[in-house]
Structures are given as C-alpha cells and as structure tokens.
C-alpha cells in the first residue's frame, strides 16, 4: 500500500466545542492505482485531502494515522513534511486561477516548483519546464512559458497546475475537483490526461469529485463519504452498477436519465454538530428503521473488496 489511512479524524474547535468533520476514515491506495473519493459539499472529502498533505487550516486537528510508504505523515515534523510535499505527494485544486500567481509568468512558476526540491541551473530548469508543459500537452510550450495565467484558458491553466504537480515526480497526486470549473469537453481532456500521467509515471491518483459518474469512468476503487464518514467502499464498476448503501443509491438516482423519474434524496445534509444518533444518514434514508437510529453501523465487507456502512444493505441490495 502506498498510502493507508487508519482511523483518520479531523476536528475543529468552535464555539459549539470540538466538532468532528472527518471521522475514523480508513482506506488504502495501492501504488499506481486510481482512487475516487465521492461526496457532496461538507462531507469532509477536501479536508481529508488537506490532512494527507499536511495543509489543514489553522484550528483543525487531525488524529489517527496517515501512512505513506509506512511513515505516519501526521507525526512527521513540519520540516520533513515540507520535503515530502511536492516531491512525493502533490496536489491540484479546483480553481486553477486562484492557485496560480497572477503577476508571475507561467514559466517562472513551473521552474519554482522544480527548483524547490533539487538544484538545477536556470537553463536546465527552463528545459525541464518545457518538457513538463509538453507532457501535459499544452500547445506551443516555449511560448506559453512567457505568458501570464490570465492569458491562458481555464483548461490550459489546469494543465499548468498539473505540470507543476508532477514536476518532481510524485508517487501520489491528489486532485480535488480539478474539472469542476471547466467545460464538459475540456473536463474529459483533463481527466484523460491525469489518467495517462498516472500510467506513464506509475503515480497513484486520489481524485475527489461530487460526480459519481465521472469517478466511475476513471477510478479503480471508489469511496463514498457522507457526514465525515466512509459510507461505502468498493470497486468502481460494481459500486456504480450495484451500490450497497442507500446514500450511494440515492446519489445515482439523483442523476437525471432520459425517460426515468427523478428520485432525489429528501432533506439535506445536517451540520456536523446536529448529526442524528446512530447511522448518520438515517434521517434522510427511505429504508431507515428503529435499529438504524440506535447505533452507528460499522463499515462491513459484503462482497469481495466491497463494503458498506448499513445494517440493511444485505437484505435490501444483495
């Protein structure tokens, strides 16, 4: 396992006391694999990525273990984490415009990513930057190096972000909704690019998205989060075609399909300080029973490599 989360929790100190927003998350990402993390806003998927990167905001506390090649990243001193970040683990974010510095040329920013972890001469760095931009299929890379971010389209900016992320050959790329700000036709291009970089460079990918259909296309394994918990974890194709958790099923039925009635999940995600007792989805679940509200179910394996946090999954969906 390249990355293994063991009971990762993230909490914030607020006026309501300590509030847990990610709770006991455990899953593993093998070397070179493609893991998809799904969930709606506020489910804790972005904080999970930030916790792995050691980039949690002020006031957030992570507990549990984040094992990267056997080393617990949470107990690593900040200086050592800084050496790993960018070199071994890299991340791209949703909005490429806010991630790039608007007053610096693209070339400078890509070279900065290169020079942060290894000494290179300016000419070498420039040559490497051109190679990187070519690797992310940015047209005419020599010219682009001298441009500013605002001169590029959204898709091109995300390519530049990817070039910076892969600059030092990371073993794990975290991508948090990298295509949400892009058009559909460009979205497909960026996802295909991420997947081909993964294959060429044996780099594992953790893709975070609210769109299960997109994850099912690219990921090997998908985890579905709700209220800070992993509700279902399984092989992408199977999870998409035969989901085991009512929440996953609800998400899939929320996608409009021709000639089929829409069956939205009723209600909305409660705030983390007002979660129901027992199963955290029980207040919105059409299948909830007394027992569901009494005790929170464990994530249990029901098919090979496919687990769900639901006491009724077996009787309902198997």
């Amino acid at each position, binding site marked *: 396992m390249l990355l293994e989360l063991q009971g990762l929790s993230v909490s914030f100190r607020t006026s309501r006391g300590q509030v847990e927003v990610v709770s006991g998350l455990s899953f593993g990402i093998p070397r070179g694999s493609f893991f998809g993390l799904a969930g709606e806003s506020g489910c804790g998927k972005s904080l999970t990525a930030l916790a792995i990167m050691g980039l949690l905001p002020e006031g957030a506390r992570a507990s549990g273990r984040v094992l990267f090649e056997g080393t617990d990243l949470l107990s690593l001193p900040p200086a050592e984490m800084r050496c790993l970040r960018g070199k071994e683990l890299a991340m791209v974010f949703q909005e490429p415009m806010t991630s790039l510095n608007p007053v610096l040329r693209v070339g400078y920013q890509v070279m900065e990513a290169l020079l942060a972890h290894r000494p290179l001469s300016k000419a070498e760095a420039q040559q490497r930057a051109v190679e990187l931009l070519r690797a992310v299929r940015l047209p005419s890379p020599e010219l682009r190096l001298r441009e500013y971010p605002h001169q590029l389209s959204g898709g091109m900016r995300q390519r530049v972000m990817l070039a910076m992320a892969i600059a030092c050959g990371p073993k794990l790329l975290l991508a948090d909704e990298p295509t949400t700000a892009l058009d*559909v*036709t460009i979205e497909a291009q960026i996802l295909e690019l991420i997947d081909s970089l993964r294959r060429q460079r044996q780099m594992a990918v953790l893709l975070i998205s609210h769109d299960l259909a997109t994850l099912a*296309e690219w990921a090997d394994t998908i985890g579905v989060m709700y209220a800070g918990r992993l509700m279902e974890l399984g092989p992408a194709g199977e999870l998409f075609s035969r989901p085991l958790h009512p929440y996953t099923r609800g998400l899939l039925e929320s*996608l409009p399909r021709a000639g089929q009635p829409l069956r*939205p999940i009723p209600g909305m995600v409660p705030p983390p300080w007002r979660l129901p007792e027992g199963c955290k989805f029980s207040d919105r679940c059409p299948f909830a029973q007394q027992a569901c509200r009494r005790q929170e179910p464990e994530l249990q394996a029901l098919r090979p490599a496919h687990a769900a946090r639901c006491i009724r999954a077996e009787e309902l969906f198997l």
Partner: protein
Amino acid sequence: MSTPLLEARGLRKYFSLRRGLWARPMVLRAVDGVDLQVGKDMVLGVVGESGSGKSTLARLLLALLEPTEGDVLFMGHSVFTLKDELMRAFRQAVQAVFQDPFASLNPRKRVLELVGEPLRIHALVQSRGELLERVRELLQAVGLGPEALWRYPHEFSGGQRQRLCIARALAVEPRLIIADEPLSALDVSIQAQVLSLFAELRRQRGLSYVFISHDLRVVQYLSDTVAVMYLGRVLEQASREEFFRKPLHPYSQMLLASAPSLEPGRRRAVPKGDVPSPLEVPTGCPFHPRCPRRFSPCDQVLPKLQAPGGGGRLVACHLYNPY
C-alpha cells in the same frame, strides 16, 4: 402559428473591450444572430459551454440588456420600447431565476419581504393578511415551511435559497421563467430536488421555461426543444427526442459524446481542441477548428441555420445544407 410568447429575431449583442489604455478596442460578439421562439407551455433548453453567449442571451430575453441589433418580441411587441401597461405586463409574465442564489437575495431582508416584494410592486395583494397568506402558499409550493417567513437569506442552504428565488419568480404568476444555470451552484442531491421542483411546477401551472444549462442530462430531463449554442450562435435546434436520438451537428455530437457516461464501464470520448475565446471567433463556421468532419467550405462560408430536407429541426452545418 399563433404569436409566440417570446421571440428573438436576429438578435446580436457586441461588447467593446479595451485591453490596456492605448490598445485598439476589441469587439466581443457575445450573441451573434440568434432567432428563437418560445411558445405557451414549452420548455426550451439552451446548452452551451462557457463563452457560448447563453447568459447574454438570457439577459437580452429579459430586456436587461439592449441588443446591438435585432429584437425581442413579447406577444408581438418589442420589449425594448414597451411602455407602462405593457411593460408591467411583460415584467409580470416573464420572470428570472439566476445561477447564484447567494447573490440574488438581499441579505438584509426577511423572506416575507423578499418573496412578497413582487406582490406589492404589481399590486397583487390588498392587505397584509393577504400578503402573508400568499407568501405562505408560495413557500409551500416550493417545498418550504411557513417558519421560513421571518428568516433572513443567510439562514438557508444553497438549495433552499434557490427555492426562495423560485418562489419569488412565481409570486406574480408568470407565464415564462428564464432560468440561467439555476442548478450549477448546488450539490448533486439538491440539484435533483430543485430540478424535480421545476418539472412539477411546470405540470401544475403550465409554465414555459427557457432553461439555460451546460448540463445535457438536465436539459434532456426537462426540455421539449433543445438549442445548442456555440460562440454566440445557435448551431442546432431540435425536439428533445430527435436531438438525443440523433444529433446532427458535429458539435452536438461532440457534446453528447463527452458527457459522463451513465453506463458502468464505459468511458466518454475525449474531444480535441480548446473552447475558443469569443474575442477570436474563427471565420466561416465558428466550430470548424475543432470539427472532425470539416471540409472545403467550412473555414470560408458561415453556414446558415436551416432545416435540411424541410423538416422541423434546424442545423447550421454544410454537411446537411447546400452552400
């Protein structure tokens, strides 16, 4: 055919942009010759990527922007010269729902004022009691409880705010709602809720919509007619059934092929080329640089939106129409 409710005729909107103090102003052709008709009890879905001009089109149809050329007709009258009575009738008949429900509601007003405001402006209620009752009914129609009356917008989630915007649009009993990406700021499960609300309101009230979205799945769910926009022009217009069974324009085909597949194990096609800037519209067919089927006339001659073989569906492509 009787007079349509709302009609766009040869609609163009150009913006002049100055990039830098001494630079020559550039012309951005946001909408470049659009003809559309929206009839009674009809949902027109407009799809397009960013820069296709769909939001500018929405603002023109709402008479919030003056066109550079062309006209928008409301029951046969130009909306840009409407006076008093007719203008009020237009503002009552045609309402808007926008993308960002956080920006569309005044944060200092309570729900009662927000939803009740159009009722007061159009003098549709006589007393405060009547106002309260109407606003309660409207809240119920969009799935919100009466306790919402006294709350401020910040106390609601994104989906609930969009419901408030819809309630406000419904207040004056419009005949047409122009909705510009009303779902794209919402979460997947909430999108489904709001989408079914749009469908249900249409069934109950016989509303017409111009529903603008980048999401083909949404358009397919709700629309009767689909119009595909690209760089300010309509490239194809067809009934939903025809369009999704067999899209004619190569761009429509590309859009459909690049939408995420809902069949497990199937990957979408990866189209080539970047979305061009509306500041640099290619000559000839605006889509030709990305088109896999372009041939000799495409980079020279602009194809007209025509009905090949005289059918009801329209397509602007040299593959189907003689040039």
